[in-house]
């Protein structure tokens, strides 16, 4: 091993066996049920004798959570691992942190690994905050002296001085998470493995956590492996990125490049960004005539929706059913029903294009101003005299992913509002300039 490499994985694979219950097993008679139970008992006893684990279900399936993954990580690198749910990210971290063993392949690790796969591992609800700091710290691999030395720092970071001697079961969930993260943040391993733990706590605290992560990754020069769905955080914190897809490593390199690849693969993964058929949508306000056919909301080139990136809303409708100039509008709302913005043809300049001769209306939003989260869209179509000929209030829910809106690496927080504005700061009175 070259001295600079701290983790070297070769053909790493992990197999799980899961059981399925076949859908056809509807036993008609008592005899069938008894027969089947007897058969099951026999099979399980056989498993017990052979020392095999008990798996419920009639058919067994092998699932490769990881397949032939090879990579090298150098000293001081901060690696962001991205991929969809079930791509094998957590399995990879579990192998690297020695929780589970690979089925095939080999990893060589140089240096002590601390893993943070969950916030507050081993916290005991009956114990006080003070006691849990010692408990959790030891579980994460700190020595008693280390914890003692950092105790005040931890308490400071968590902002729980007043409740140090209260059992943590009386803590609010915010306090609990803060304390848990505070302990973890003071770990000093050579290699730190972190799984999506920043997605907890309130926005202010999240910011603090990211700051701490930045400290560990950039200033202290430790090797960090970091799984996240927060692309902005990966882009900002990491010096390289890994992309996992169905258990395989499909990309490694410059983080922004990997993120780009990941986001642009959005339409391949599922039908999440496909055309939403609204022809038979039940919840609509109309006079028995269904005009709207479908809606699509996606990023540029069919990518997922990302804050600050272009977004395209495409509405398809039956042009034959509108006999004059069509008027379209859509409104975006939060899940709580708070309207954020609307956009209607009625307000904009009429051009030959807005006659939508083909029954396809596409709206380009240059820079999606929505903060990360889930929203609903409602659509209406009609004419000048009858603007709501067909109106679908809750046509579709979509998710907006986070990104670095202002290009500064500062992660936007949702408690500062739902929309971002394009604005800038100046040291002169703008009114005076003009």
């Amino acid at each position, binding site marked *: *091993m070259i*001295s600079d490499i701290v983790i070297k994985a070769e053909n790493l694979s992990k197999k*799980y066996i899961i059981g399925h219950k076949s859908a056809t097993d509807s036993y008609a008679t008592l005899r069938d049920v008894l027969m089947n139970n007897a058969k099951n008992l026999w099979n399980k006893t056989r498993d*017990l004798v052979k*020392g095999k*684990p*008990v798996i419920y279900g009639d058919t067994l399936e092998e699932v490769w959570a990881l397949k032939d993954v090879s990579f090298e990580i150098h000293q001081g690198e901060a690696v962001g691992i991205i991929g969809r749910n079930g791509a094998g990210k957590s399995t990879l971290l*579990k*192998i*690297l*942190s*020695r*929780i*589970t*063993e*690979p*089925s*095939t*392949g*080999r*990893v*060589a*690790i*140089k*240096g002590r*690994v601390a*893993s943070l*796969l*969950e916030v507050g*591992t*081993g916290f*005991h609800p*009956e*114990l006080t905050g003070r*006691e849990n700091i*010692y*408990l959790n710290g*030891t*579980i*994460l*691999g700190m*020595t*008693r002296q280390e914890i003692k030395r950092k105790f005040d720092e931890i308490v400071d970071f968590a902002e729980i001085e007043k409740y140090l001697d209260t059992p943590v079961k009386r803590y609010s969930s915010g306090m609990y998470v803060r304390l848990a993260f505070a302990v973890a943040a003071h770990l000093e391993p050579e290699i730190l493995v972190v799984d999506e733990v920043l997605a907890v706590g309130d926005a202010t605290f999240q910011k603090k956590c990211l700051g701490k992560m930045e400290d560990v990754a950039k200033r202290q020069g430790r090797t960090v492996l970091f799984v996240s769905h927060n692309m902005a955080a990966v882009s900002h914190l990491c010096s390289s990125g890994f992309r996992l897809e169905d258990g395989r490593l499909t990309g490694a390199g410059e983080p922004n490049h990997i993120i780009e690849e990941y986001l642009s693969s959005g339409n391949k993964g599922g039908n999440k960004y496909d055309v939403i058929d609204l022809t038979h949508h039940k919840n609509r306000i109309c006079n028995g005539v269904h005009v709207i056919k479908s809606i699509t909301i996606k990023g540029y080139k069919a990518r997922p929706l990302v804050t600050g990136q272009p977004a395209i809303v495409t509405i398809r409708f039956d042009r034959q059913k509108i006999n004059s100039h069509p008027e379209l509008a859509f409104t975006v709302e939060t899940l709580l029903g708070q309207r954020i913005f609307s956009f209607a043809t009625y307000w904009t300049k009429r051009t030959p294009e807005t006659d939508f001769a083909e029954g396809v209306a596409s709206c380009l939003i240059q820079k999606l101003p929505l903060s990360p989260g889930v929203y609903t869209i409602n659509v209406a179509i009609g004419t000048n005299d009858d603007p709501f000929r067909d109106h679908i209030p809750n046509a579709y829910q979509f998710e907006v992913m986070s990104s670095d809106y202002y290009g500064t690496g500062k992660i936007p927080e949702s408690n500062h509002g739902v929309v971002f504005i394009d604005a800038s700061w100046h040291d002169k009175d703008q009114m005076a300039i003009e």
Partner: protein
Amino acid sequence: MNGIAAKRFQESILILEPGRSEKNYWADLWRYRDLFLVLAWRDISVRYKQTIIGILWAILRPLLTMIVFTIIFGRIARLPSDGNAPYALMVFAAMLPWSLFSNALSESSSSLIGNTNLIGKVYFPRIIIPMAALVTAFIDFLISFIILIGMMVYYQFIPGWQIMLLPLFMILALLASLGPGLWIAALNVKYRDFRYIIPFVVQFGLYISPVGFSSKVISEEWRLLYSLNPVVGVIDGFRWCILGNESTIYLPGFTLSLVLIGFWIWLGIHRFRKTEKTFADLI
């Protein structure tokens, strides 16, 4: 790089491979001694939280069992005591190691499934968990030891020099529970059936072990066979230490108990280490 530095460099590299057993397993265990202490301390400090009489439970349970046994076996069945020792004292001298053994066994065998969250989220030598569970049982034992002292004062019974050897038998009781405890803890991860088997075994064991009666009640030709139960040796040892000359150790049986305890520990550790790496996947 000189030879020593190169060697140290090699040693610091950790290789993870299927089926690979760690070279430094026991040395590693020593490095995790802090965790062992913390887990034991956690179990003890939460044991009687939110109970009214708290730690008194550790005294009450063996005390009540002792009273019942003295009445049933001593008064009603009129079984003989060891020498001239008071019957209640003889029962309690066995009650102590029996509760130590049975508590240690049930605590350690259910310890892994009680710590699922730890096993799935952090690495440490798993054997620490069942071992830390033994400490809880031992603390309970020390507390109920107070009753023994109280009883000795009450009966004005002065123990002989043998009492000095009692710590050895305490360790023996713990070792006797460690072997099966480890094995069942590992099995429990895969097959939860053992969760129901253990309470039954413990209850059953209380009656087949010489707790309520002296092991002299067992006739000579069956004595060796009876000693197949490793707890028999431990209990006899306890009685010998506490009651002094009133009680004797049946040596062939005691040796057999020792051998069996050793075998169980070997089996327990062997089975445990063999399955240890799959715990996180199965639990």
